[in-house]
Structures are given as structure tokens and as C-alpha cells.
């Protein structure tokens, strides 16, 4: 029986001050909101990758598939196709979504499967003790790049817009109510929803001050305007000191992938009979 607060009794092993705590409670609250709207709790499935973020699969007392590094999206896609009545959420790290499993992220957006992808983007590999990720700033000194990285980060927001994602948003663990609100919207969007969450890593990349100083909440932005979304996405390149927009950058309703597959009702003809009938055509 899931606990009322949706938190398991598993011992929490995140570092003190970790951004994952905020994300966990923001997601928990968003799920409670869905349940309040009438979605049965048992219809919600969380898929996680591997990394600090993924421990959320142990900590939230809901259905979960704790998968392997980088592969949340294909697992979630399979679950959604198998049963479109389920609400499927991916929690992935930036190593998961932007490095090891980048192909799946792009294809998830391209297919427009109705799943929600929340990227715990702390811009560092935490659990492997501090190496650079695809969104670490240029010159990042990690344990694998002691002289500083010589590659600039890419911009996942621009990437998702280019890949056809119908819901593209950014939030931060520095703004829990905002984050919870954005996740709630993402869960309710019918189609592929992408939320990049700028999260601090208390141990290896604590840039709270940067996000507090440069971050601002979007207002007066029209999320239906693709060009405006692209311009907003380009405002900050995950490297410079430019203003960082938080909010829903783009939203578009499109046909979802699983619509193209008919739901199968139980057949009155046995499989064996169907197979025998097929064999007759081969004589």
C-alpha cells in the first residue's frame, strides 16, 4: 500500500543541500495534483536512468522502472505504447538524457510519444564524483578534465525545439513552486513534454548564486510562437552570464505517436485458427 505522502521508507542518500530534494517534492506535489484531478495513482509510472537523480525511483512510492544509464525514454515509450492509459514520467540526469541517451531524447521528441521527460540538469556527473557533462560550461575543471574542458556545452532547449518537441520548458530547483507548476503542466500536456531543470549539485557544481542572479520567470511570452521560443532559447547558451528564462517556452498540440497504433480488443478467433488460415494462403 503506497504511503499517503508518496515517500517510501528507503533511506535517502542524497548529499545535504542537493537539488534533488526540491525536485522530488516538486514532482510529488505535481503527482498529487494529478491524483486530485482524478488520475488513479496506480496509473502513474516513473522511469529513471542511472545517477543521483535516479534514486527518486526508490524514494517515490509509486510504480517505477529503475532502468539503466541513458535509457529512460525507450522504456517509457514501450510502457506508454503497451498501455496508453498510463501516465509515464521519465526522470533523467543530464548525463542520461544529453550524453549516453541523446538519441532517445531526440527521437522521443520526434515521435511525440505522450510522456514527460524531466532532466535533472546539474551540469556535472555527481555520482561518479565530478566529471563534465554536455551542459557543463566551457573550461569546466572536472576530474576527467583537470585542465578544463575544451568543448562548449550544447543548448538542450534549442535542441528540443529543433527536434519537434511539443512542450519545452525550463525551471530550476531554486524555485520550488515554479518547478512544481511547470511539471504539473508538463504532465497534463498531451504529447512529448520536456522540462530542463537547472539543479544545483551541492558537492560538485553549486551555482545557486548564478541561477538566482541571472534567472527570471517568463512573462508576456507567447508559448505558441515557435520563433519567439527559439529566440528565448538562444538568450542563454548554458555557458555565458546571460539572463536565464524560466517557464514554458513552447507548446504545441500535435497527434501523438501511440494514436497510430490501434488498441486491440480480444479477438473471437483463436490465434491457432488465425495461424492456420494464414498457412492456407501459403499453399
Amino acid at each position, binding site marked *: 500500500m503506497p504511503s499517503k505522502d508518496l515517500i517510501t521508507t528507503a533511506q535517502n542518500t542524497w548529499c545535504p543541500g542537493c537539488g534533488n530534494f526540491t525536485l522530488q517534492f516538486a514532482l510529488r506535489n505535481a503527482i498529487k495534483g494529478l491524483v486530485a484531478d482524478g488520475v488513479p495513482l496506480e496509473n502513474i509510472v516513473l522511469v529513471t536512468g542511472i545517477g543521483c537523480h535516479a534514486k527518486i525511483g526508490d524514494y517515490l512510492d509509486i510504480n517505477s522502472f529503475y532502468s539503466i544509464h541513458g535509457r529512460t525514454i525507450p522504456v517509457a515509450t514501450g510502457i506508454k505504447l*503497451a498501455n496508453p492509459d498510463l501516465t509515464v514520467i521519465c526522470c533523467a540526469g543530464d548525463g542520461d538524457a544529453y550524453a549516453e541517451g541523446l*538519441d532517445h531524447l531526440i527521437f522521443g521528441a520526434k515521435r511525440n510519444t505522450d510522456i514527460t521527460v524531466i532532466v535533472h540538469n546539474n551540469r556535472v556527473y555527481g555520482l561518479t564524483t565530478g566529471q563534465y557533462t554536455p551542459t557543463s560550461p566551457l573550461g569546466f575543471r572536472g576530474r576527467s578534465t583537470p585542465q578544463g574542458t575544451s568543448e562548449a556545452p550544447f543548448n538542450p532547449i534549442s535542441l528540443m525545439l529543433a527536434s519537434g518537441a511539443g512542450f519545452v520548458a525550463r525551471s530550476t530547483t531554486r524555485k520550488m513552486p515554479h518547478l512544481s507548476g511547470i511539471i504539473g503542466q508538463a504532465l497534463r500536456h498531451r504529447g512529448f513534454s520536456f522540462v530542463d531543470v537547472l539543479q544545483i549539485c551541492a558537492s560538485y557544481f553549486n551555482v545557486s548564486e548564478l541561477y538566482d542572479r541571472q534567472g527570471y520567470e517568463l512573462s508576456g511570452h507567447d508559448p505558441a510562437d515557435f520563433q519567439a521560443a527559439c529566440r528565448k532559447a538562444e538568450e542563454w547558451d548554458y555557458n555565458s552570464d546571460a539572463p536565464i528564462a524560466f517557464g514554458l517556452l513552447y507548446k504545441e498540440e500535435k497527434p501523438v505517436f501511440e494514436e497510430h497504433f490501434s488498441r486491440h480488443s480480444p479477438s473471437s478467433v483463436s490465434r491457432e485458427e488465425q495461424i492456420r488460415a494464414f498457412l492456407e494462403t501459403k*499453399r
Partner: protein
Amino acid sequence: MNDISVLTGGRAGDGINSAGLLIAHLFNQMGYQTYMYFDYPSLIKGGHNFTITRAADKKIGAHRERCDYLLALSQDSIDLHRDLITDDTVILFDSGRVHGDGQGIAVGEILKAEQAPAVMGNSCLIGAFARAAGIPFDVVETVIRRQIPKEREKNLVIARKGYDSVSEKRSIPRAGDTCCPLLNGNELIGLGLLHGGLDAYVAYPMTPTSNLLHFLAGVAGSFPLTVIHPENEIAVMLMALGFSFAGKKTAVGTSGGGFCLMTEGFSLAGSSEVPVVVVMGQRTGPSTGLPTYTGQTDLRFVLHAGQGEFPRLVVAPGSPEQAYVWSSVALSLAWKCQVPAVILVDKTLCEGTYSFDDTAMTVPDTGDEPAPSPEAGQYRRYAITENGISPMQFPPMKDAAIKVNSYAHDEAGITTEKADMVLLMTEKRQRKAQALKYETDSLECVKTYGTSGARTALLCWGSTLLVCKEVAERLGFRVVQPIVFSPFPEEQLREAVAGIRNLIAVEENAEGQLRLLCHQHGIPVGSHIAKLDGRPFSVEELDARLREVS
């Protein structure tokens, strides 16, 4: 015995596979057992493709090194097969493209007169073949009406013109009244999986199992089946596990290179106990190798694939009937025991076309999956049980959180690093291996054929079964064929080789992978006959190689 081989050759794009298949259907209507080997290089247009359609009045599954009829749509079809041509070979060729001895058919002119597309050249060709082989035109008509989906009347007119353009050379007698379904191995694996309850098939194209993807995608409308072709094999395996987690019986298909990409997910299936079936069609390796040719070099790979230790089912059917039956069994047992399963086949079986014995479709009953946990609110995905198999439930389940995990986990599916729990779960997986062995022990995991009491036996696996059976019959040998490789049926194999003095392994690999496996289990194997060029054994070649060692 009637035993006829027809070589049909042309360029890629000429529809040689279809032509060879139509010839097989002519023989089928004449009451013959048939087998068709399709040889093609990895290109789309041009090159040299050929089929050898063989017909006999007993069951066959191997080609002969002979050519009673040669149908040539390209000059290469004659020039590259001169070693097979004898004075008795009846040669028919497209006179617009080929020069040589034999009877020319003006295929291009006939098609032009009928304003027909090039693809209808096949009908012209099989009409001409039928006449040369003394097959009545009504048989041609039956085949065209049954096997050509479009523009049947036009195809018939063209076939008739082909029929009338040559003279009878060597008459083929009617062999009987039995007419079998003709199917390739991929289709039979697909049908077997459907029989076992397949709900979803996920694959990325790769020879030799691409046609399984095409076949299942084609029938997904008529069977309750979802077929998905994702971005790569990593996504294939993980998507399949998503389907299975949500309660859908799922299989994937690939070849060695694709399975390399799947192995991390394969190990996840082992850890998370989410069942999945992998159809692994071997081709000539290593690496890209010969993409459209055959081999049996991945037995050890599939037995060991994936990090860590976990029970797995590996079956290697060797005939079209076994492909059907064991594909169904593999899916059922994967679900019953909650393990990953591999159906290990190869290009020969996947893409060969066979007369299918539809009286041999009986699938052994593997019994029911474990009953669901009765107590709502108490569900634990990895509950410790006597046989290691926990009740498997799927979301949504009221008042339960169904948690599966790639990490070491406790009964509820929550990550743990506690020594005692890690040990308990390892032991649980070991008990599952025993449960799986108990299941396979009740099945015929090792088959024997041929002369009982013979002191010499051929030890073979997979598609070499049928050539071994045929040659063993000639030489008075026994044949021993393990079908299940994991769990290894040591006791059944010992029993099968009892009394054998000379056990000769016949394998399409250099290292003798089955032989090594037997040695590990203390079963001595004498010689090893290997075939390493990507081509399957012909009856003559295996016969000659065996005479050297026995």
C-alpha cells in the same frame, strides 16, 4: 527418388527470390517437398543473385550441387555456375540479355507486347520452365492465381506466352497429392511467437531477421500485435522491456551486431526479471562480416551475453517446424520463469523457404504462469518464493507500487547494498535457473534421428540439422541435435550419445563451439567439421567431408 534442382539467376532487382519461390510453388502443386536456398550479395541493384529450388519426394532442407534446370536472366547466371552445368542441364534464358546454349525466351519483347512492367518477367520465366519440365499449364495457372496478388490475368497471359515459346525437354512426373504451405524460417518464427501470445515486436532492420520485422509488421493488422521500429537496437531492447513491464509479451529481432548493442538491456532483463525474447539471426562475422550469408559463430556469445549471472533460455531450432514450435515455447517459458530468452537461428533458416509440415505444429504445453499475489496492498515484485519466481503484476494495480530495478534490490524492488539481501536475491535467481531447468527437462531438448544402433553420429545444431539428416541417412549414421542450450540439457545429451563411438560435430564455425560446450560437460566429441565461407553445406560437400573423417 525424384530429386530435382532448379537454379534461377539474375541481377538484384530482377525478383530472383520471387521467381525461385514460384518455381517452388509449381513443385508444391506437383506434390513435391521443396526447399529453396537464396544467395544474394549486399546490394540493391545489379550483382548476381540466385536461388536453388530443390524438389524431392521426401522432406529436404539442403541444396544439392547440381542443376537440372537453369533459368538465366543474366549472363552471370550461366557463366558463374558452369561447374554445375552438365549435358543434361536444361537451360532457359532471357534471349535479350543472355547468350548461350539452350532455349532463349524473348522476355523483353513479350513484356513489351503486353505493355507489362519488368517485374512480370518472372511469370514469363516460370511459364517457360513449366513447359520445359512438362508441367501442365493449369498448374502454372493455379500458382499464379494463388501466389501473385496483383494483375493475375495479365500475368497469366505472359506466363502462357513464356510457356508457348519453348519446347518440353525433360519431363517432371507428379510426385503426389500433398500440397504444403511454403514458408521461410522468419515467417515460422513469427507465427510461433504469435502462437505463444506475442503482443508486441520491436526491431531495427538487420539481415537476416529484417524479413521477420516486415512479416510481423504486415500481419499486425490482422493479429492483435503492435510492431515498432525504433532508432537503434539499444532502444529496441529497452522499449521491449517497457512493453513487458506493462504486461505485453514482447520479442525483439536482430543479428550479432545488433545484439551487441542490446546486451546491456539483456542483462537488465536478467536483473529486473522483466521477460523478453530475442530472435538472434546469425550471419557471417566477425563485425559486419558477410551481411547476407550464414554462420553459426554466436552460440557462445548468446550463452554469455550480458554482465553478471542470471538465468536465460537459449533455444536453437533447426527446422521450419522446430522454428514454429520453439518460438512459441521460448515466449511461454520466458514469461513463466521471468527470464530473457534467445531464439538462436541463422541466415539459412531465416531466409530459406521450406515445405512446412503443418501436422507437426503441436506446441508442448508449458503450463500456466504463476498466479498473481492474492493480497492487495501487500504486493512485492520480488517476493522471495520457493522456486525463485515471484508473482508478476503489471501497472495499474490498485494499492500497489510495482517497482522493478536494475540495481541489486529488495523484495519491494527498492535498491539495496545490504549483503544479506544481495545474497538472498542472487540465490533467488539461482533457484529460478533450477525452475527453468525443471521446465526444459520435461521437453525434448535433444533430438536424435537416423539409424538407431549406429556407432557414428553427427552432432549438429540449428539449420545444419536438415543437411546432416539427409547425409546421415545416406551413410547410415545417427544424428544428435541439441535444441536447448541454456539450461544445458546435459542428461538428455548423455542419453542421446550413449553407445556412440564416433561423435562428429558439424558446425558452421571455426572453434567448434558446440564441441567445446560438450567437452565442458564431459561429453567427448571426436572430430569437428567446420564450414567457414558463409555458405551452407550442400549435401555433396558434407557427404565428401564426412567420408574423409569417418
